[in-house]
């Protein structure tokens, strides 16, 4: 475990006043001022109620900026019209939902009244599936490589992590710049004697690059989680395998992978949730095109609420409630899994 004492320069950049001995007198002052009323509060309400005090500030902001908006959002989804204030919106019952779900056949988006929503759903499913597979595969590969005895490991680890810091808009902008008709990738292809490829105008290519760019920018985070898992595997297990002269791939398959499984589950679940939420990076990269072939469900929601002249908050809210329920189910599945594992 890395404790603060090992990293004085970095820790002083943080607000932790635990280093009161070393940090500024200002912080020490703060600590002293806060200690007293908190102790008094504890005497007043008793130790058993203190957890609520700790929870309160966070829950307050949660309530105000997450729960209340979710409630308003739900109200939007059962009302119609262009009005912004909830009280001015006429109640339409399940009208928005039935409009959203009015389909000849759910397998064919073009038979649906609101075909863009369903195209968004199918694109998001395709995107999420391949993105998660690629993400897990490549993070695992990178983590295994980074776990080898290699010179400059710290440097390489930082290299792979670096894109995680870029904003989705910047990531998409950079890649758009590279992939466009006159971009550097096409310059390279033509220099090698090939023909220009319209990477963002062919549906399959566009989806490929949307996935590629998304993996490129988030892979570093998952790699580190898996690396942590790999490093936690005791070395004597491998030594035993070495004694038996077990082939390397079998060691990986039979030993490493099962031991890494809990970390892999975290990676799969987090990656999946993020993939379903994808919006700005794909939006800036492809604009949802060509046609609607990379239109994601969150982009559909955003555009329904904002981009049209009649800003349709009701329909957008209904779609977001549906998305919310799906995401919540995914989360519950994760909870169920982890709880079964711990029991």
């Amino acid at each position, binding site marked *: 475990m890395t404790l*603060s004492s090992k990293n004085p320069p970095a820790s002083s950049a943080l607000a932790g006043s635990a280093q009161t001995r070393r940090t500024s007198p200002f912080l020490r002052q703060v600590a002293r001022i*806060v200690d007293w009323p908190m102790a008094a509060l504890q005497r007043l309400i008793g130790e058993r109620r203190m957890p609520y005090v700790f929870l309160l*500030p966070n829950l307050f902001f949660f309530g105000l900026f997450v729960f209340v908006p979710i409630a308003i959002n739900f109200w939007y989804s059962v009302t119609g019209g262009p009005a912004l204030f909830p009280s001015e919106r006429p109640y339409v019952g399940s009208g928005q939902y039935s409009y959203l779900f009015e389909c000849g056949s759910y397998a064919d988006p073009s038979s649906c009244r609101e075909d863009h929503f369903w195209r968004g759903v199918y694109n998001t499913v395709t995107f999420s599936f391949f993105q998660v597979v690629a993400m897990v595969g490549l993070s695992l590969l990178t983590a295994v490589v980074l776990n080898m005895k290699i010179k400059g490991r710290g440097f390489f680890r*930082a290299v792979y992590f670096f894109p995680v*810091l870029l904003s989705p808009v910047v990531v998409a902008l950079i890649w758009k710049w590279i992939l466009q008709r006159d971009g550097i990738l096409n310059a390279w292809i033509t220099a090698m004697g090939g023909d220009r490829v319209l990477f963002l105008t062919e549906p399959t290519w566009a989806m490929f690059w949307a996935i590629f760019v998304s993996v*490129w920018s988030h892979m570093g985070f998952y790699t580190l989680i898996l690396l*942590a898992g790999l490093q936690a595997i005791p*070395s004597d297990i491998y030594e035993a395998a070495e004694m038996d002269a077990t082939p390397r791939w079998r060691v990986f398959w039979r030993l490493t992978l099962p031991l890494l499984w809990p970390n892999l589950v975290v990676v799969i679940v987090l990656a999946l949730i993020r993939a379903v939420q994808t919006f*700005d990076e794909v939006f800036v990269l492809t604009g949802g095109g060509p046609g609607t072939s990379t239109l994601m469900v969150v982009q559909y929601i955003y555009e329904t609420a904002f981009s049209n002249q009649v800003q349709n908050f009701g329909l957008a809210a209904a779609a977001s409630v549906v998305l919310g329920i799906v995401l919540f189910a995914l989360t519950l599945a994760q909870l169920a899994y982890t709880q079964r594992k711990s029991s």
Partner: protein
Amino acid sequence: MSIATIVTARRDAKSWHWTDIAAYAYLILGVFLMFGPVLWLGLSSFKTQASLLEFPPSLLPMSQKEVTLPGFPQPLPLFTVTMEDGSSRVLAQVRRVGIQAQMVDPADPTQQFRVAIDKRVPVREFALATENYTEPLERFAFPQFLANSVFVTVVATLITLLINSMAAYALSIYEFKGKNAAMLAVIGTLMIPITIILVPVYLVVTKLGLVNSLWAVILPGAATPTGVFLLRQYMLTLPRDLIEAARMDKASEWQIYWRIVMPLTLPALAVLTIFSIMWRWNEFLWPLAVLTKTEVYTLQIGLNAFQGELQTQWQYLLAMTVMTLTPVAVVFVFLQRFITTGIANTGMK
């Protein structure tokens, strides 16, 4: 602790296995793939508007060489011309009429040539178009935007660290009524992207009278579920004896949190710090909705005013992207060791 992996498990430290070579090749490819695009952005941001559009693009920012000749008030652009006899020479262009260019020899300006325009190639030299940076910075209240962005990022990160760690402390150390409900709330909201509840949040902020205040950007995102989740997972791994010992010493709950648990949680706090800085610094859609006055613009809003209805001024957009990216990159360079080890140690188990 000696770190063993499947690969090193059977390896004598001195001999090279093909997997080592493959690993290095993969890593070097990684450096190219991960840094290359960002480097390309940086180089492109120094190109002039015209050379940004060129195909094939030049690697380095270039601009056309010009000469000032006697008898010509304006500097003349230089071209390499393929002459009719197949030889090539450098000429200065006086003017172009249709598909013919009138050119002179820089060494002897009285000697004139008529050249078809597809027979000439510009002579170029390395030049940085620093005006991509200076012009927008002069035109906009850049120091103000920077101050606002720094204020938002710093204050929001401090608030996030404080309230998230308090909540995580409550959820990891104590058993109390409603704990499961609170946990469910945290994890449930982990999944809600703000994009889809933008309008309701805007309504709440309006009712609070916070529109056009930096607090409207700071507060809504302060209670991050991700932060609570991350810190709680880490705090669960802390040894309980320390806390019990402190209770024996009559430390108050606040003191236990502030003086014992917080210092031990530093690696996870470092991770949350960098994520929070990153989120806040890069935030675009939400500030765009609540900030409409120049004096409260953050960098992301102020520097995106180049995106018009019908035109985007790419040379400025790229330069300003580099501007906003640089501070985060610098923070990362200084904190990278701490961040990467921090995440690795955060468990997430």
